[in-house]
């Protein structure tokens, strides 16, 4: 366990939450994208977090890392809009499987998780400062 290990662990949490935020932003930006290079509408993406395998001993502090950005397997939403350039012969358009409401909730969750990691970091910093104060009195 190094001197700054707790700070590093919190930093990995911050990085992970930022990646999550990026993914949510991408989902929101593409909430109405009907054309992708792979064909079909944009598919919602979500991040998969796994603990960082760091120390050899079990129970050692470990950060978090993003191992995968997965596509949501849900079907595209079919919306009736005959005037849309990507509408099928029946007049239906395959819209991305992104629910803006869901993304907003995820966004708040990511933001709060980021704040929690910053708080943990500050507490660790405060503890270090207090330890340095031992010699000061």
């Amino acid at each position, binding site marked *: 366990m190094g001197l700054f290990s707790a700070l590093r662990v919190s930093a990995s949490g911050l990085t992970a939450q930022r990646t999550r935020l990026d993914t949510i932003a991408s989902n929101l930006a593409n909430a109405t994208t009907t054309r992708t290079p792979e064909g079909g509408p944009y598919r919602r993406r979500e991040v998969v977090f796994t603990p960082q395998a760091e120390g050899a001993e079990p129970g050692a502090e470990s950060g978090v890392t993003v191992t995968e950005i997965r596509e949501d397997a849900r079907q595209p939403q079919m919306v009736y809009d005959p005037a849309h350039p990507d509408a099928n012969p029946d007049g239906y358009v395959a819209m991305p499987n992104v629910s803006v409401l869901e993304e907003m909730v995820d966004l708040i969750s990511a933001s709060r998780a980021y704040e929690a990691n910053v708080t943990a970091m500050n507490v660790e910093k405060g503890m*270090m400062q207090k330890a*340095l104060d031992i010699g000061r009195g």
Partner: protein
Amino acid sequence: MTIQPISDSIGSIGSIGSVGGGTQGSSDPVASFADTLKGALEEVNKLEQTGDEQARLLAEGKAKDLHQVMLSLEESKTAVQLLVQTRNKVLEAYQEIIKTQV
């Protein structure tokens, strides 16, 4: 970047006492005080340089994560504070000895 050596080298300051205890005839090589201090200084300097480098990258718009920059700066700040505290303690001990009446 590994930071373990900092605590190692600072921890080995504790072994300075055994330098004075060398009269017992123990022959295990103990790093000299100057070397130990130099090692600690170099480690702190390394952290400082990492902090500087990160700050430069941020100024150039090349930094990937803002929090990594802040973390590096905080790390170097804490390391310097720890170094200063260690120096204060060592100086204090030195002055105590200087004041000894002969």
